């Protein structure tokens, strides 16, 4: 896939260069009125054809997006009544809050920067997961017609509440429930392999906690007066059991792939919408402004503009190739 993408980029750059060269030649060489009229008509036709293909592609992408959205929308009620039951959501929430409290305290107690960073990562990730969990809990209560409770919100500090409001305002569609659940699981699991991570890659909460527990074990040997490790270990096991179940179900239902396909389709839909606009605007500009004014007398004045629009149509073909390549990946 990378190879074909590289080929397309080379084609795109090559065509742009050729088009620019041709445009430059047209500007510098004398061209008569009849030739310019033919160039304009051909350019307009090319733009029209490309617009047709882009519109068809956009419709296809939008159709694919809606199809995926409805597939995910159909699955979300099952999740909310099963794997994301209220009891489980509340247990996970309590565990996350307990971890957040413990590691915030540990963070303030250490003077070693590396250790502080490890604990800070745990605090950040537990906060992020808690916020997403609170959003899920809220959506669940709304969807099942249950009475709203402030149980999860009341446990938030002001910053956490601001993050919650922001996250909650982003979730509007039913399928986004599963995207929220995936974000929780992704924060927990991170990479599925136990690779030795290089540089500043994002680690998973799962890994940060395991390492913290091991580190607390070492500190216990040194200080012999701490019981944080045992308590954290118990919470870690409970969290692991609950989140692993959710993660397993999400993978079984291919939610990760479906969401990634949706994200792809959404990006293409957004990005190429503007391309379609450009392909609508340029022929209009030619037909309404240039063509009526074009005569033997104004030919030399309009020549550079015509050269640019004709080279744009060539560049458009290259864009179209990239577009088709992206659509085929959705």
């Amino acid at each position, binding site marked *: 896939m990378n190879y074909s993408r590289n080929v397309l980029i080379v084609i795109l750059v090559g065509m742009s260069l050729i088009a620019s060269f041709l445009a430059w030649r047209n500007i510098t060489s004398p061209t008569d009125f009849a030739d310019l009229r033919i160039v304009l008509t051909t350019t307009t036709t090319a733009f029209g054809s490309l617009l047709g293909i882009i519109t068809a592609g956009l419709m296809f992408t939008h159709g694919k997006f809606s199809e995926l959205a409805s597939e995910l929308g159909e699955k979300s009620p099952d999740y909310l009544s099963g794997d994301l039951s209220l009891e489980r959501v509340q247990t996970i929430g309590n565990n996350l809050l307990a971890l957040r409290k413990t590691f915030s305290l540990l963070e303030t107690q250490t*003077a*070693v*920067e*590396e*250790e502080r960073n*490890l604990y800070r990562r745990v605090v950040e990730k537990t906060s992020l997961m808690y916020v997403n969990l609170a959003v899920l809990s809220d959506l669940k209560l709304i969807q099942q017609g249950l009475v709203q409770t402030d149980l999860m919100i009341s446990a938030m500090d002001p910053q956490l509440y601001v993050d919650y409001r922001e996250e909650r305002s982003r979730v509007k569609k039913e399928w986004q429930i599963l995207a929220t659940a995936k974000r929780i699981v992704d924060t927990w699991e991170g990479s599925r*392999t*136990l*690779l*030795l*991570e*290089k540089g500043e890659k994002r680690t998973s909460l*799962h890994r940060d906690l*395991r*390492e913290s*527990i*091991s*580190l607390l*074990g*070492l*500190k216990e*040997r*040194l200080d012999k007066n701490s019981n944080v490790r045992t308590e954290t270990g118990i919470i870690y096991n409970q969290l692991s059991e609950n989140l692993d179940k959710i993660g397993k179900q999400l993978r079984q239902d291919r939610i990760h792939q479906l969401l990634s396909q949706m994200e792809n389709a959404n990006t293409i839909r957004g990005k190429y919408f503007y391309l379609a606009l450009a392909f609508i605007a340029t022929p209009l500009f030619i037909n309404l402004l240039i063509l009526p004014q074009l005569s033997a007398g104004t030919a030399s004045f309009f020549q550079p503009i015509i050269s640019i629009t004709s080279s744009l149509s060539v560049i458009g073909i290259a864009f179209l190739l990239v577009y088709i390549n992206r659509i085929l990946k959705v």
Partner: protein
Amino acid sequence: MKKTVEEQMTALLTKYTYPPVEVVIPILQKAGRGDEELASQIREIDMSVLSGTMKILNLKEKNMRTVSKMFGVILSSYGQKYEPVELSETRFCLSISDCPMLHVGKNVDNAVKSRFCDVLCSSTAKAMAQLVLGKEGSCSWDKALIKGGRKCTVAFELVKTK
């Protein structure tokens, strides 16, 4: 449903996790003690990982071939690339291109990294010799990675008894 070897290894390595060396070294440096405690913790973790690996792979023979198999499976499970260099009845040698010590901060002196490298590797060697071979074994390594090299050679061999 029966778990695959890969899944069982992942679960085993998840259960027994090393403390992160990039965090441990600055802590122990600051405390000015703790090498022995770290060594004993590493040995306990290694004993659990090695005995678990033997069970998972159903390895019963107590020889250097078993040692090489165990090293291979454990390193692969960590996503670590390695190359066996030598295997005989008394010696197993392998080359690795990554080690946890490489992820320790640049502000930590190479001599300190080297000292902790000794602590970690000799603990693993002791555990391996005791559990897999039931004999005394030693481990030597050229520490090329922390000196800026691209690969490090680790040799594990049986101690010759007179």
